[in-house]
Each structure stands twice: as C-alpha cells, then as structure tokens.
C-alpha cells in the first residue's frame, strides 16, 4: 500500500453536517464515537470544526428545502479528496420524513454519498463497521 493511500485512510478528519431535519439523536450518537468506550482517535479519526480541514463529511438528518443550497456549498468548499457518509435512516432514505412537504430531496440527490449507515439512530458499532467498510473500499479501489 502506498504511503499516500495509507495517509488518507489512517487519518480521517470528519466534519459533522446536520442537513436540517434531524431529530438530533444521530448527532449525539456520533459524539459517542469519541468517548472512551469507542475512542476512534485510535484510528486517527478526529472531529474538526472547519469543512476545509475535513476528509469525510458525516451527513445526518433529512435534507430540508432551505438546507439544500447550504449543503451543496459546504460540499463544494471541502478540500478534495473528501468522502460523504450518510448516517441514519433520515439521511440514507428520507426516513419518517419521506412524505414531508419540507423535505423534498433525499441527501444523495445532492451529494455523492459514498456509504450509507442505516439505523434510527445507528449504533456506534454500526458506524465503526461502516467506516471500516469504507476504508476497505477506498483501499481496494487503487
């Protein structure tokens, strides 16, 4: 494995993007990953505050009408290569808001989602499994 690929997959800085219509439970569940029980910093995964530093965008919640433009702009500003991870039933499909008048677009109609992690909310173990699969996919590609 080249150093480049290793560096990209061993040091994933994630930016947490709430796409508007989230019940906040997925967001809290993401923070669980940083607690001593799961401690994803072991794998070099850190939560960053600025989209410019991010290697992965975690999208939670169903995309509201107003948030579409913002989400697009956030993705455009990210420094590539950058992967998009949809977390939770809301972000994967549209969850319970599928027929909602304010949430017309699914997340993957706006962003190129690389991996879907379903669940309402997904357990931290499921998220870690998702990231592991994503890393496998990235490494297998090259």
């Amino acid at each position: 494995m080249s150093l480049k690929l290793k560096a990209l997959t061993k040091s994933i800085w994630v930016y947490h993007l709430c796409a508007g219509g989230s019940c906040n439970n997925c967001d809290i569940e993401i923070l669980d990953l940083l607690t001593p029980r799961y401690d994803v910093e072991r794998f070099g995964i850190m939560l960053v505050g600025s989209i410019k530093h991010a290697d992965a965008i975690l999208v939670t919640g169903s995309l509201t009408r107003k948030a579409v433009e913002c989400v697009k702009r956030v993705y455009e500003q990210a420094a590539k290569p950058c992967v998009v991870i949809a977390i939770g039933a809301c972000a994967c499909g549209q969850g319970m808001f599928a027929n909602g008048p304010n949430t017309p677009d699914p997340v993957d109609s706006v962003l190129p989602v690389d991996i879907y992690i379903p669940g309402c909310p997904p357990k931290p173990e499921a998220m870690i499994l998702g990231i592991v699969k994503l890393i496998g996919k990235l490494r297998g590609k090259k």
Partner: protein
Amino acid sequence: MEEVSPVKIMLKHLFNFIIFPGFLFTAVVGLAASWIDRKVTARVQWRVGPPWYQPFIDLVKLSIKEITVPKGASKPVFFMAPFIGLSAVILSSTFLWLANLELGASGFTGDLIVILYLLTIPSIMLILGASASGNPLAAVGASREIKLLLAYELPFVFALVVPIIKSNGLLKLQDLIAFQAANGAFASNISGFLAMIVAIFCMQAKLGLVPFDMAEAETEIMAGVYIEYSGILLAILKLTKIMAMVALPLFLSTVFWGGFSIWKYVVLLVIIILMRNTNPRVRIDQALRFFWKKMTFVAIIAVLLAMIGM
C-alpha cells in the same frame, strides 16, 4: 590552519538550517512530543490514544490534499504567512540548538533578543494569514490572537530581563549557558524561579494550548485562525506549532535552567500537557487580566528581587 572556503561555510550553515539541528531534527523531536501530548491526553481521559506515527501521517495526509482559497482572500498574504512563520521557528530552533550543543562558536551578542522577536513571528503571521482569508470567524480568531499576543509579551519580556540582570548584562545564549554553568542555574534563585514560572505561563499562551487556546477554540469559532487553511498550508501551520513545542521549552531551559538536557525538556513538556488537560479554556478578557495584572506583577517583583541580588 587551512583557510575554510566560503562555499563550505555556506554548506555547513545550510546543513544546520535544514537537517541538523534545524528543520528536520526539530520536526522529528516535535512530532514525537506532539504524539506524547496526544497519547497522554488520551490516557488522562481514559482512552487508548493514537498510534505513534499519527502526527506524521496527519501531516502527510494534509500535504496531499487540495488547497482551497476563499473567494475574497488576499492571495499573496494568505499563501506567504505559513511559510514565513515556519522559517522563523526553524531559524530560532537552529540558533537554540546550536547554542546548546556547542557546535562551534555560534551565535552573536544579542541573539537572545533576536530569538525573542523570531518567536513572535509565527503568531503575527497567523494573525496576518487569518485576516487575509476574509472569513469572519477567522477575524474573530485573529483579534483574539492579537489581544493574547499583547497580553503575554509584556510579562514575558519582564521575565527575560531577570537573567540579563543576574548575569550583569549578558545577551548571548552561549554566554548565559556558560554563566549558569559557573554560578548555578538562574531558576535556583528566588527571582529566577518566579521569572521562570511567569515564562512557563507565557509559553503555554504562545503555544496556543488550553487554557489559552481561545484563538482557535474548536468548539466555538471552529478552529478560528486556521478555519480557511487547508492542504499543505494547514500542514505547515501545524508543523510550525509542533516545532514551537520544541523551540519554546528549549528557550526556557537555555535562559533560566542552565541549558538543554532531555529530562528538563520532558519536565517542561509534562507541565505543558498537565496544564492543558486540567484546565478549561478561559475567556480572552480573563487571559488579558491574568497576564497584565497577576503575571506582570510577579514578573516585576522578580526583576526587583534580581536587582537587589536575590
């Protein structure tokens, strides 16, 4: 004795600057220190922590990522600032290492003052780069960094006056080390000890670590001064910070504590890490009050004590 050709001297200086003990060596030591910092922090929080190569691989990753430039940014300043900051910190660490390792008669009268200035340049460049990016949160961060700079420079300069008074006006690092070797470290006197405590607090603020990290406050202004930087520019800013984590303890142990040794560096590093892990972030006005009232007061007492020879 043969005459040494100027080319050779230049090559030696370049070697000193780029490989040992300048850029590469300091960067390696700094990466190790930064890993220790992260690992100890993780252990304090009952976590496992990152593997030993993590700081290095973070830098590699950053340097292969895209560089994004915000639309309204002033490009020359935005691009230049990280490089100037890095070269300042390389230069100061080269001076400090050379003075400590006694590789030939390096240094000149007054290099203490030059290093004081050089160590300020990374902060100033950070302020310039952040302001050039045109981001409002970066502007908030830059304004906090300016206030912090004004806050800690005053007691820091006062603290540095103490060794100068005690050594009857020596301004050269190697002379200071030689003087301390003959007469005992300044930190063993009460005035030098007080000055060193002040300098340790200033060092924490210069490094921008908790409790004085309000300029980059991840949780409130989203990395503040760093917010618009990405790719290799961010890598350089991080590297500057990592190398300052070597240069500043080195400076303190040179000036107050009789020169570098590994255990002194470890003690100072442990103080930095403990302070960082046991404190919350203070507000900028609290920091200003802390430095201008308490620390400056202590530093002035130290200067007075030094004048009466204690």
